């Protein structure tokens, strides 16, 4: 039997560096430094202008607003990787499951298959939050329809990855099952194929996640801590 523990999809991204724990730590530090680099100057400029010339307060406040908005936009970008994709996103609240089933007739069947792949606690969490929790060597993963979050050991950093099954017409749970199987075959390969979108503190990502999904991130942090 010909088997492999490497993802076949790696052949499509031969130029990418191996994404191991060391790479993730380095990338988290780079994101941290980058956040300070574009935040601290705006804070200094804003405070300095207000202190030196009170008449410049509006401009100083605008600089402080930049220091707040830009990190928020980056965090929003990170959280968006697990945001439900349309048309499911249009049905966030009550009746969401019914709307998903209408838009994707195969969703109930796909949900059953995904449930079979998950353990009891993970299955319940996925049904409540839409995210599948999977423990790996790099940390704890949360898989969504079009992306994944990786909570590093210790629970102090979250890496956000854009990654999806190539067939966009798949039911939402099937998309998660595709990612789950690929992750289980080759965790580092999965992280190499995925596009790294953001790294930062979990609270920054949680604030920008749909409320329904936040318990999944809390559970992942608890598991990683």
């Amino acid at each position: 039997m010909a088997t492999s523990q490497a993802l076949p999809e790696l052949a499509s991204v031969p130029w990418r560096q191996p994404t191991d724990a060391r790479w993730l730590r380095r990338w988290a530090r780079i994101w941290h430094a980058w956040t300070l680099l574009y935040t601290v100057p705006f804070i200094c400029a804003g405070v300095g202008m207000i202190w030196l010339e009170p008449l410049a307060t509006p401009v100083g406040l605008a600089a402080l607003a930049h220091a707040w908005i830009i990190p928020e936009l980056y965090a929003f970008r990170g959280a968006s990787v697990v945001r439900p994709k349309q048309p499911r996103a249009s049905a966030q609240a009550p009746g969401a499951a019914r709307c998903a089933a209408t838009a994707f007739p195969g969703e109930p069947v796909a949900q059953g298959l995904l449930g079979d792949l998950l353990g009891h606690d993970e299955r319940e969490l996925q049904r409540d939050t839409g995210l599948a929790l999977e423990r790996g060597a790099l940390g704890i993963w949360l898989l969504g329809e079009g992306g994944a979050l990786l909570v590093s050991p210790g629970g102090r950093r979250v890496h956000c990855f854009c990654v999806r099954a190539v067939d966009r017409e798949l039911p939402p749970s099937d998309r998660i099952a595709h990612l789950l199987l690929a992750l289980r075959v080759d965790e580092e390969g999965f992280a190499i194929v995925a596009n790294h979108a953001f790294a930062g503190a979990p609270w920054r990502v949680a604030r920008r996640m749909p409320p329904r999904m936040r318990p999944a991130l809390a559970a992942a942090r608890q598991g990683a801590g």
Partner: protein
Amino acid sequence: MDRTGHTTLAEWTTEDDAAFAAAVREFGEQQELGYIGTVPDGPGRATHVRQLPRDADTVILRRPIAGG
């Protein structure tokens, strides 16, 4: 796994050569369509297979993934 949720393409037993041969043909056809064979190996583990394993309980054919 497909747009219907999932479809059973073939079933076989280790003793049934004809059923296994039919499953191998189906497996090959799906690979040509771009599907990837994966065998769940229990909690948290799975294996990529390029040939249909006769003794596997389940082989799941999935689409490739890519960075979004």
